[in-house]
């Protein structure tokens, strides 16, 4: 006999909704037409709760909770869009823009970038924190792709897709804090990686202009990630 599916009822932004046990707040919100901003989360990859954009208020909880990893519970009262949350999200985006060198006007993904789009959606018209202007490399050693660390927001989507979906585990993170950086293999040029299959998955899950196809000029790089839900379904994993 199949175990019965447990149903939870809760409210999100005042709306009564029902959900399956084990679903996250983010999933249930989306099913109900509420789009909670995300950057590190991508359906099909393991959630890491790192970017903190999806934080929501849950009545009775003493802290804000990341919607992308928090499972629904019976009777939860969730607020996804309070002024406080929007302010926090704006500030997090400001921090990202200040962290590295984002010159949108000359960027390959200008107009197709998740960071840029979120900034507009949340009303970030300028950055109050002084820009850091770090000196970061561009690794164009791969024959088809390149990674520009100036645009990387360290969401680790590339790390996860390459490890969890492609099974190659080319990418990882080196260093810590503000000095963290994405590296290929043991910090060697991407083009020299023996394990990279050149599948391009990391290129397309990258939310920004950090990983892109060579030969694309400003604003030409569009990301296509339809493959991801398809692959996870084909593998029988939960979506």
């Amino acid at each position, binding site marked *: 006999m199949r175990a019965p599916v447990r149903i939870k009822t809760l409210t999100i932004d005042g709306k009564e909704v029902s959900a399956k046990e084990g679903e996250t707040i983010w999933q249930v919100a989306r099913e109900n037409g509420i789009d909670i901003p995300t950057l590190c989360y991508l359906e099909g990859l393991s959630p890491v709760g790192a970017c903190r954009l999806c934080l929501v208020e849950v009545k009775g909880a003493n802290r804000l909770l990341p919607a992308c990893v928090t499972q629904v519970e019976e009777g939860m009262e969730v607020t996804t869009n309070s002024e406080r949350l929007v302010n926090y999200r704006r500030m997090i985006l400001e921090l990202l*823009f200040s962290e590295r*060198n*984002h*010159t*949108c*006007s*000359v*960027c390959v993904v*200008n*107009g197709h970038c998740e960071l*840029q*789009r979120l*900034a*507009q959606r*949340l*009303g*970030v*018209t*300028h*950055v*109050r924190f*002084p*820009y850091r*202007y*770090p*000196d*970061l490399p561009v690794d164009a050693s791969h024959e088809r792709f390149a990674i520009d660390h100036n645009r990387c927001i360290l969401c680790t989507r590339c790390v996860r897709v390459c490890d969890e979906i492609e099974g190659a585990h080319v990418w990882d993170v080196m260093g810590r804090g503000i000095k963290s950086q994405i590296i290929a293999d043991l910090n060697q040029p991407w083009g020299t990686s023996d394990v990279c299959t050149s599948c391009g998955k990391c290129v397309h899950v990258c939310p920004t202009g950090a990983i892109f196809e060579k030969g694309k000029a400003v604003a030409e790089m569009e990301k296509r990630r339809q493959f991801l839900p398809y692959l996870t379904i084909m593998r029988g994993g939960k979506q």
Partner: protein
Amino acid sequence: MSQRKMRLATVWLDGCSGCHMSFLDMDERLIELAEKVELVYSPFVDAKDFPQDVDITLVEGSVSTEEDLHKIRLIRDRTKILVAFGDCAVTGNVPAMRNRFRLKDIMERVYSQNSTHKNDPPVDGIPALLPKVRPIHEIVKVDVFLPGCPPKAEAIYFVLKELIEGRIPDTSQLSRFGA
């Protein structure tokens, strides 16, 4: 009822003038605006010194030289509403791409390594470069931010109209970084 015309200025610091071109793209709407504002200082007009008592100033470009620095402070002093006009003014944009290098290295590269003449960097006659290019709000208070490279004519028009009517416009849905 004839209202006092608003005194408008537009300024060009370290930018490519693209933002001013976009301003001109307002086309026939310029005529409509001209009825409400007087352009008291601009690359488009002849005034030499930045005047007193300006209502609205659009500043294109980042703060990159000693002269920009002096100008932006003067402008702030004499302006009621200061608009950071375009990405260079708002973020530093392309001019700020030099910030990851040391000024000394850049000068050497430009004036000796990459030059057939192997000149020393000039010292007289042109304003000295600041060690770092800065968006204008890092130097003075900015009242309205209009990102975009350049911001579209529609966005500029909307901003000016709102300001003329005494409202502070929400620019976020009109334009974005890089737009």
